[in-house]
């Protein structure tokens, strides 16, 4: 197989990647319900594993080649006049990196899901959705034009909607799915308008045509001719990215999206889909690069989001929600990195974040699985005694998230903060300091959850050991029967009644992800062959036509490489030290309040009651939306409803009254008696003949 792969060109290989999950999805859809049933995860895992193998082989051949960009069309999707949308791939370091970690993490999560979802009603449906998600995600990151990216963009949104609403008998799941879909609509609309403007401006939608000539974007005469477009395109793309990547103020959907099954939260709402916004901005960096107000907006909003979400994370009690807000916060970091033109740092963080956040969610899923669906950190404690593997793995993820060296999150986060600190933009240091503060908070809330749940005296919720109550088992008799059937085949459920780490299918991916979360950070340090920023930076800097590297030539520090020595506000090593110290400080604070003296935490919370309440209510964002958007729309709806009821319906009533009256007056002729119908018919004929007679005379 490897020989066959080696014979393919880069474009062919890249085009092959999305194909396998698509085949798997079709296969599962067609056969899942009747034939595959409990084995539906096998084609899904096989499909995504094949994609991963091809992606890795692509990575190898990419390094082996001259390090340039490859792009090509596979076939024409549609065309009208001079407008053509091909289905094609655009392979550079950015898309290779994305496609590698998307397929890799997906493989692990698919395997995990096979154990986690075992026995759930609609098992095959879950894997069909997941496979279609991976297909669309690969399309998104590999596409060579904006319209195809849009297809992937909408496709992952659809998959997200379907998977958030997977437990559709639950009202909260339905609401969350709708919320995610509607909020994403804002971004999708902006993206579509941006594509229209791009076509009007560049007369093409291909990446090569739009981004391939950065010098044109710089030319003064060209800029003057298109000054409106080059302002609006990045702005609209920014809104699109913010909606997909849950940035202020469009972040509200992501925490609610945790209603979906936990592997979905891990895959879509932490590791891959939500980073599509980062990918989009990184990909289009040449468009942003020369429109500084928009780029700065990206950075500022990213920074504010990071801080806000971290503070909310401090006062949440649902484990999944804590990780959800931490995802929002980490995405904020990435946009902060993009905002200071440190694209490679941001993408590096996407990469490390995918590992440790997927790990955290999957480990949380194991906890949820063992605790019978309970996730309230106030109701459990010290469960490391019953779930040792999960605890160790989750600790690795927690260290990475908290930014404690040498775990992965530390290096990527530090790369962003150091870029911000040394950016030519005068706001950079301020943003960096807010970022450092956020790092402290991050470390605190991470270990707050960890110490509460995994350490201390053993306290288990009443539901511990039961299988997570599925929405389907409650409402659907057939589903319950299904569940019972599958239980017999799943040894994970053989020890019902005692919380455990679950089956090997569940803890093996955890271990692999834990190793990843511990080690991938070193890519940012070692292997650079003289480049500062390590293997990752060297990899992303390999191609001058690469937009992500456009930012990289601007430098990891946000300064053109040629001027690196010009101004360094704070040396990277010093910042590393500060960052590491803050991480450890957060850990210690969490240790004091949540392990050593848990009473002190309650006392402190009581003292700052209004603040805590404010944070518990997530800065009242949902309420703000309600007041500012939902209520006015509601009132407007009422107004329209009354207009409809009295004015429109009144008119209709008047119009309908006349025929109604006519009908009422001749209703008695319909007596139901045959002879009267006969009489009417004959009399009618007689009258017609008489009329003819009269006319003839």
């Amino acid at each position: 197989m490897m020989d066959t792969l080696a014979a393919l060109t880069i474009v062919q290989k890249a085009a092959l990647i999305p194909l396998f999950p698509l085949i798997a999805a079709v296969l599962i859809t067609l056969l899942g319900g009747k034939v595959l049933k409990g084995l539906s995860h096998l084609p899904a895992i096989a499909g995504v594993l094949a994609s991963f193998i091809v992606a890795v082989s692509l990575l190898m051949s990419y390094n082996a080649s001259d390090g340039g960009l490859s792009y090509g069309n596979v076939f024409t999707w549609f065309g009208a006049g001079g407008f053509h949308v091909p289905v094609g791939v655009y392979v550079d370091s950015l898309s290779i990196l994305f496609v590698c970690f998307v397929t890799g993490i997906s493989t692990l999560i698919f395997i995990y899901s096979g154990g986690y979802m075992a026995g759930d009603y609609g098992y095959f449906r879950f894997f069909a959705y997941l496979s279609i998600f991976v297909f669309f995600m690969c399309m998104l990151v590999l596409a060579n034009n904006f319209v195809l990216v849009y297809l992937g963009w909408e496709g992952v949104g659809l998959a997200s909607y379907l998977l958030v609403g997977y437990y559709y008998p639950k009202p909260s799941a339905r609401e969350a799915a709708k919320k995610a879909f509607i909020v994403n609509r804002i971004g999708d609309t902006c993206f579509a308008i941006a594509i229209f403007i791009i076509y009007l401006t560049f007369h093409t939608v291909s990446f090569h045509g739009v981004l391939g000539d950065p010098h044109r974007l710089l030319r003064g005469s060209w800029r003057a001719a298109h000054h409106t477009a080059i302002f609006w395109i990045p702005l609209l793309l920014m809104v699109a990215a913010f909606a997909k990547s849950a940035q202020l103020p469009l972040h509200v959907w992501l925490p609610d999206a945790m209603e979906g099954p936990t592997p979905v939260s891990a895959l879509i709402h932490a590791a891959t889909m939500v980073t599509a916004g980062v990918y989009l901005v990184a990909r289009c960096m040449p468009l942003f690069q020369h429109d500084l107000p928009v780029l700065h907006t990206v950075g500022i909003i990213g920074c504010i989001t990071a801080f806000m979400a971290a503070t909310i994370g401090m006062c949440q009690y649902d484990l999944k929600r804590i990780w959800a807000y931490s995802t929002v916060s980490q995405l904020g970091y990435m946009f902060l990195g993009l905002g200071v033109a440190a694209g490679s740092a941001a993408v590096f963080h996407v990469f490390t974040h995918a590992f440790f956040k997927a790990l955290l969610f999957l480990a949380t899923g194991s906890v949820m699985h063992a605790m019978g669906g309970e996730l309230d950190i106030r109701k459990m404690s010290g469960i490391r005694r019953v779930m040792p593997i999960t605890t160790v793995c989750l600790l690795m993820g927690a260290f990475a998230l908290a930014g404690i060296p040498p775990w992965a999150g530390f290096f990527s986060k530090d790369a962003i903060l150091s870029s911000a600190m040394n950016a030519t933009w005068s706001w950079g240091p301020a943003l960096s300091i807010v970022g450092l503060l956020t790092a402290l908070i991050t470390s605190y809330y991470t270990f707050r959850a960890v110490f509460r749940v995994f350490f201390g005296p053993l306290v288990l919720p009443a539901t511990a050991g039961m299988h997570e109550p599925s929405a389907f088992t409650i409402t659907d008799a057939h589903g319950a029967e299904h569940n019972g059937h599958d239980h017999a085949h799943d040894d994970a459920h053989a020890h019902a009644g005692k919380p455990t780490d679950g089956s090997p299918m569940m803890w093996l991916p955890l271990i692999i992800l834990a190793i990843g979360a511990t080690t991938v950070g070193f890519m940012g340090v070692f292997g650079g062959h003289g480049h500062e920023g390590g293997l990752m930076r060297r990899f992303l800097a390999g191609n001058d036509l690469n937009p992500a590297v456009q930012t990289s030539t601007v430098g990891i520090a946000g300064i053109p490489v040629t001027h690196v020595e010009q101004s360094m506000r704070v040396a990277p090593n010093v910042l590393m030290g500060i960052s590491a110290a803050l991480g450890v400080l957060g850990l210690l604070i969490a240790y004091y309040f949540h392990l050593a003296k848990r009473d002190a935490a309650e006392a402190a919370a009581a003292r700052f009651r209004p603040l805590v309440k404010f944070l518990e209510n997530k800065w009242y964002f949902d309420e703000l939306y309600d007041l500012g958007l939902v209520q006015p729309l509601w009132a407007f709806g009422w107004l329209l409803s009354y207009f409809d009821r009295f004015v429109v319906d009144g008119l209709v009533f008047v119009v309908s009254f006349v025929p109604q009256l006519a009908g009422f007056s001749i209703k008695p002729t319909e007596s139901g008696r045959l002879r009267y119908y006969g009489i009417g018919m004959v009399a009618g004929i007689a009258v017609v003949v008489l009329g003819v007679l009269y006319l003839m005379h």
Partner: protein
Amino acid sequence: MDCTLLIAVALGALGVFLLLPRAQASWRKLGALITVLVGGGGLFYLSRWAELQESAAPAGGLSLYFYIFAAIAVGSALAVISHPKPLYAALYFVILTLATSALLLTLYAEFIAIVLIVIYAGAILVTYVFVIMLASTPGGAPAAEYDKVSADPLIAVLVSFLLLATVLQLMFHVSGPGSPGFMNTNTGLHARALMAANLGYHLPQFSGIKTPAVGGMAVLGRNLYSHYALSLELAGVLLTVAMVGAVVISRKNEPPAALGSGELPTE
């Protein structure tokens, strides 16, 4: 407007109105009397009128048989609709069929005449009699109330005879013998062609027209199987469908277990 025609029709309507089944049997006798008088008068008038036409342009084709069987047909038809007992009505209908087929014989339609007797008297009427016996009260019992009193006889008679008056008026006084320019000849195309052929003329306007002898089975058969072959097949299908439908409809449904009675709820 021909007053004679209208008066005759009006009188006939009165007679039929009185003849229809009603509570007081004496009125029916009066109705029968009026109807016989009007019918006899009408036929007599018709024969006088026809003789007048014949004398104007003698062509033949009228016969005493027509008047005899027309009288029998009309009389038995009136008996059918006015007899309170369905079985008797059915038997009068047999008489009507026989009279009709005799009338068809006067029109040289021998095959149809026989078929009419076979199908109507032999098949359809037997079915009627079966159903009447199946659905009636046992023999000797008085007729049912709905047979003894007809419904809305006045409206029915008025409407029917209005139509009859209109049609007769149209026939005799607008396009028929009562209209100006009426000639007592056969104006049909085939008839003219045949007449010309009989007289030895071979006129170009008739050259394409076949003039077959009417009434023969051979002619009818050729016509049916050439011009109306498809329609004939469809008629066969129709009869098959009707037969299957009749079997399905009249089958006594075994009540399905779920429904209990096996019948639709009535009221």
